[in-house]
């Protein structure tokens, strides 16, 4: 008995030291977590405070005024962001979903391995490099900057995000659903598109929404592709009276602005009203991105509890 107790008594001070180290280090992990979240509240709070002062109805319904003139808005950039986001989603979503089927159900073929690896690599390619290549491949041959070129650059950034999340969601669909469909004689494409995809639809939509939120704040790939255009106004283009397809073409085939691009330009200008407006742009942009994120999270959460119950 004594042989067990004696070393414990001898080591008591060492044991105390170990316990103190334990307490300090564990407290530190909590402290750094708080420290890391501090910028989140600081940024959100400050942008709401500053942006809230300069945002008004004119700001989101009017075109920019000339430099140095008070007032005016960023209608052009909001339209641009809308067009760019929609166009890049249209370009990226259908192929990503089909690619995700390959990644989820043929993961161990050679192409499957190459595909999953290159998806990860593509998500790590710097956005500015994608902008450079977009310039070289689309802007240069066409001879002019365009929203279409920017949409392609952004679509390339969306591709890996949507493939990854869709792949995970498809894998979660119970296998007997798939087997049941195949056993009834449905072809694989029919099983994939009308059984598995609807079963995973919620997760897939979540992934798409998060992808959209992520790329809607991107600036770097747009600098050399859409360039920026303070006169971009869809209302005027539509009133131009061209045929339907010509109008659509006119909407996407010219330089345009987007909210992050406008923010970047305004923040660097010496005119105080432009800098003030850049805070308002930041507020609009941040609310847009955070709203998508929060809605999607709450939605997942309510569905999660629903499934459990």
């Amino acid at each position, binding site marked *: 008995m004594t042989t067990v107790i004696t070393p414990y008594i001898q080591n008591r001070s060492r044991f105390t030291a*170990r316990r103190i*180290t*334990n307490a300090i*280090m*564990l407290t530190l*992990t*909590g*402290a*750094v*977590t708080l420290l*890391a*979240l501090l910028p989140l509240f*600081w*940024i*959100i709070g*400050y*942008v709401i405070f500053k942006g809230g002062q300069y945002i008004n109805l004119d700001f989101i319904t009017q075109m920019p005024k000339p430099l140095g003139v008070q007032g005016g808005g960023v209608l052009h950039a909001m339209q641009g962001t809308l067009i760019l986001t929609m166009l890049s989603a249209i370009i990226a979503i259908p*192929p990503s979903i*089909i*690619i995700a089927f*390959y990644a989820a159900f043929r993961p161990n073929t050679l*192409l499957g391995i190459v*595909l999953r*690896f*290159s998806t*990860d*690599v*593509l998500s*790590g*390619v*710097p*956005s*500015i*490099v*994608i902008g*450079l*290549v977009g310039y*070289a*491949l689309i802007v240069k041959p066409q001879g002019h900057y365009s929203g279409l070129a920017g949409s392609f650059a952004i679509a*390339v950034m969306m591709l*890996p995000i949507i493939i990854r999340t869709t792949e995970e969601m498809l894998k979660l669909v119970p296998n007997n659903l798939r087997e049941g469909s195949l056993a009834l004689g449905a*072809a*694989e*494409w*029919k099983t994939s598109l009308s059984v598995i995809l609807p079963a995973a639809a919620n997760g897939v939509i979540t992934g798409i929404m998060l992808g959209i939120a992520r790329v809607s*704040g991107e*600036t*770097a790939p747009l*600098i*050399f592709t859409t*360039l920026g255009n303070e006169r971009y106004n869809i209302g005027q283009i539509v009133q131009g009276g061209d045929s339907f397809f010509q109008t659509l073409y006119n909407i996407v085939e010219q330089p345009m602005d987007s909210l*992050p691009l406008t923010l*970047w330009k305004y*923040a660097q200008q010496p005119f105080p009203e432009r800098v003030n407006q850049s805070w308002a742009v*930041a507020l609009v*942009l941040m609310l847009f*991105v*955070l709203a998508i*994120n929060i809605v999607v*999270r709450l939605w997942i959460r309510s569905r999660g509890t629903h499934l459990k119950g």
Partner: protein
Amino acid sequence: MKVSSLSFSKWLDQRLNHGDRVWNVLMLTLSLVVPVLIILIGWQLWIDSSGAREKFGWAFLLPTADAAWNPVFGKFQAWPFIYGTLITSAVAIIIAVPVSLGIAIFLAELCPAWLREPLSWMLELLAAIPSVVYGLWGIFVFLPFVVKPFGDFLTALLGPIPVLGLFFEGPLPASGASRLAASMILAIMIIPTIAAVTRDVFLAIPQAQREASFAIGSTQWEMIWQVLIPYGLSGILGAVILGLGRALGETMAVTMVIGNSIAGSVSLLSPGYTMSSIIANEFAEAVDQLHSESLIEVGLILFVLTLLLNSLARFLVWQVARRGTEQDARS
């Protein structure tokens, strides 16, 4: 006529395996798009920078004391930008790794279950804030209120030390725009990435490892430090490299706070450029052929660097995941 068309459609159906052949070809072709895109990006950067590569050779990217970047005289050397990218990313990693490790430990091992989800969620929101918003907040809030006092403190503290002092040589510009500012903003931006992946690595470690450590009398910290961290080391390393990759390519926030000047100084406290910020700033205005080709070559270096790092990171993370599943299968 009707009969023959019916039998034709039946024949077609069988030939195409009820459409599955079409589906397979479609999946296969689209899946090829992703690797092809990567090759295309690399190839395009390679051919578009040919003029600059031929003219400057390796001297373009090798370290030099007095590197020139002069569009007027057509002399271009990328070392200041490579240095700027490397030093800002390295400092960002030095700041971010201990913090992220702490967060991951807290989220995976310590915090009560009800708190885990909201905290992870806030971390994701931090990653979701657009880069330009970071930049704007950086210019008007973070630089004057945090970077400036902290930088001045660092100069006073570490400036006089012989070799190390070179990196903390003052004075910090009054605006605070410097490599240090870029590093600190980058650290904030990559912490969510590193922390989230590291947390997943911790959560994937088999419970038996923890129990064994407690059974031989470790405290919780000793269990974490001596068992969990060594066990998940390659995964954590993967997370760090993933964060590094993100830091190397980050453009907008860095461009807005780094001060954009080609400084001769190596100091963290002087303004500088990174590879991505020089491209963002100059490419749209580069009229000279050689100038734009040099910028594309900078892009090529950046692309190759992130390609290598991401491949390495993925390899490490995959290895951990594979080992984790093997362990679970055995137990």
